[in-house]
């Protein structure tokens, strides 16, 4: 009994460490320490479990830990920062998978006479949520990694009907399994259906909606761990799982608000241009002004305030270091430089911030739209690189647009706008962007990284 109390105390200490760890993330100063506290909490929880009286097979444990630890360490250390979103998705999925297996193991080993309704319910939930998380995360990984087969949603007929049918089936199995805990085998078809559902739910989601989906899957993996905690009657799993679940839900909400689309719409809706919407030719015809590096450099001559708006394209072009070079050069010429980061720019919440941090941009220069928009009228040059929909004025001006109501970065109000793009191809929303045709806009057609480096060279010549 005494040993068990010590173990429980250790679990509590671990939970407290997790909480303080997450608190550390409220500021870049304390963030590294916060992460270390979280890792320490995990260590405490693991050690406490190792001395549990039920744990005897240490050989298997060492094997599993070494294999998993090596794979995890190698992956974490070797990947490029730009592959961050898919790495988080992958690890997330693995956590969900672990929940399915642990709940399943507990179902099998638990004495059938001790299977209460609550036990059955939480075990089934752990399997359900864990399976959806695992397969959904794998699909997300494939999409972000841009594997050929997953670049576009895989089409098959009656998608929404199939989703509805699967959802109904999974609920039915959940209810049946809970009402009849003696039939533990119901877990198997439940996990199977949930796995398919994980695929069908994430498959239709396109590129720019990925931040929402990843945040959602993140919360699911926490909820799965939480459910497993109920199954094992283990408090640290419940607490940690709830923290992660809450975190994911909040991030999902923030993403949806930033896109002005409801979660339901993101998951089940299709983005289509409104009927009778102007075509690209009508919007752009004859109004596009293309500039060279030298002409853009001249725009910066005498400028006092510059804003840079990064988007997914910057990540693709790997231009963040070049952008930082540009910012440094501008600052040395007395220009005030700020970055306007839209919440859903990129493929993951905070994606742009991580890329720019990698390029050693001081984090004080990374601003939210709310900070930058009020001063846009006093901004001499706004440089848009790799972003499209988040700077599309239609969101503000055109109620019929598919992106109507979405909060954007008001670069159209700046004195001059320079858009770095390879071509006039549309962004994720598939609609033309009137920003490109505006009088105070110059298009700078080139590959992101080369464009910025050429611009830097031209500026140095001034």
């Amino acid at each position, binding site marked *: 009994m005494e040993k068990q109390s010590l173990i*429980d105390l250790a679990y509590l200490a671990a939970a407290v460490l997790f909480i303080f760890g*997450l*608190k550390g*993330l409220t*500021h*870049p100063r304390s963030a*590294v320490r916060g*992460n270390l506290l*979280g*890792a320490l909490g*995990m260590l405490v*929880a*693991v050690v406490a479990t*190792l001395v549990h009286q*039920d*744990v005897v*097979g240490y050989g*298997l*444990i060492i094997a*599993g*830990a070494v294999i998993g*630890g090596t*794979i995890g*360490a190698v992956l*974490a250390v070797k990947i490029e920062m730009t592959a*961050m979103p898919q790495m*988080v998705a992958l*690890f*997330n999925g*693995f*956590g969900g998978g*672990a929940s399915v*297996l642990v709940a399943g193991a*507990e179902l*099998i080993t638990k004495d059938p006479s001790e299977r*209460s*309704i609550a036990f059955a319910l939480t075990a089934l939930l752990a399997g359900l949520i864990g399976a959806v998380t695992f397969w959904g995360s794998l699909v997300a990984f494939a999409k972000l990694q841009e594997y050929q087969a997953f670049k576009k949603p895989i089409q098959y007929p009656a998608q929404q009907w199939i989703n509805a049918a699967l959802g109904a089936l999974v609920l039915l199995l959940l209810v049946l399994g809970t009402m009849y805990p003696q039939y533990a085998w119901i877990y198997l078809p439940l996990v199977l259906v949930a796995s398919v559902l994980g695929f069908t739910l994430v498959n239709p989601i396109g590129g720019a909606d990925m931040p929402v989906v990843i945040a959602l899957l993140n919360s699911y993996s*926490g909820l*799965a*761990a939480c459910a*497993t*905690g*109920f199954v094992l009657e*283990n408090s640290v*799993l*419940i607490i*940690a*799982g*709830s*923290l*992660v679940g809450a*975190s994911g839900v909040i*991030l999902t909400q*923030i993403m949806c608000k930033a896109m002005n689309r409801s979660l339901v719409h993101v998951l089940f809706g299709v983005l289509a241009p409104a009927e009778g919407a102007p075509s690209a030719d009508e919007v752009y015809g004859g109004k596009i002004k293309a500039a060279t590096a030298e002409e853009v450099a001249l725009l910066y001559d005498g400028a006092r305030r510059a804003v840079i708006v990064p988007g997914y394209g910057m990540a693709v072009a790997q231009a963040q270091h070049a952008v930082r070079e540009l910012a440094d050069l501008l600052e040395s010429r007395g220009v005030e430089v700020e970055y306007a*980061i839209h919440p859903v720019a990129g493929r*993951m919440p905070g994606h742009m*911030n*991580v890329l720019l*941090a990698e390029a*050693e941009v001081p984090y004080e220069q990374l601003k939210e739209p709310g900070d930058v928009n009020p001063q846009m009228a006093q901004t001499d040059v706004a440089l848009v690189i790799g972003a499209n929909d988040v700077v599309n004025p239609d969101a503000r001006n055109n109620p019929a647009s598919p992106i109507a109501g979405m909060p954007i970065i008001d670069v159209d109000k700046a004195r001059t706008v320079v858009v770095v793009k390879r071509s006039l191809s549309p962004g994720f929303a598939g609609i033309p962007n009137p920003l490109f045709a505006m009088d105070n806009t110059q298009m700078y057609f080139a590959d992101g990284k080369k464009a910025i480096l050429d611009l830097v060279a031209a500026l140095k010549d001034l």
Partner: protein
Amino acid sequence: MGIETLLFAAEEAAAAAGSGSALPLMAAITVFVLAIFVGFEIITKIPPTLHTPLMSGSNAISGITVVGAILAAGAGQGFWAPTLGLLALILATINVVGGFLVTNRMLEMFRKKK
């Protein structure tokens, strides 16, 4: 089905959980609700600039499932528990180790200043 069944289940669980660390259902639900509140309070104060490390870090914490995996893998008897447990342990350890290391890498970048 209904509230009576749930209450009965709670009693059942509490009775079966008489030994050691098992957390009675009502206590577990209490902990769950409170933890959600704590989670909301903390997470809403995290600035957007740190959202990616938040996703990565919270994801690492969700690897707490490793505790359950250890219990299963270390059961020392039967076939399924150790087998499923081993698999779960590998997956969960990748989640934990990879997650904390990746988060650390990200956060180190935020530390450097010009």
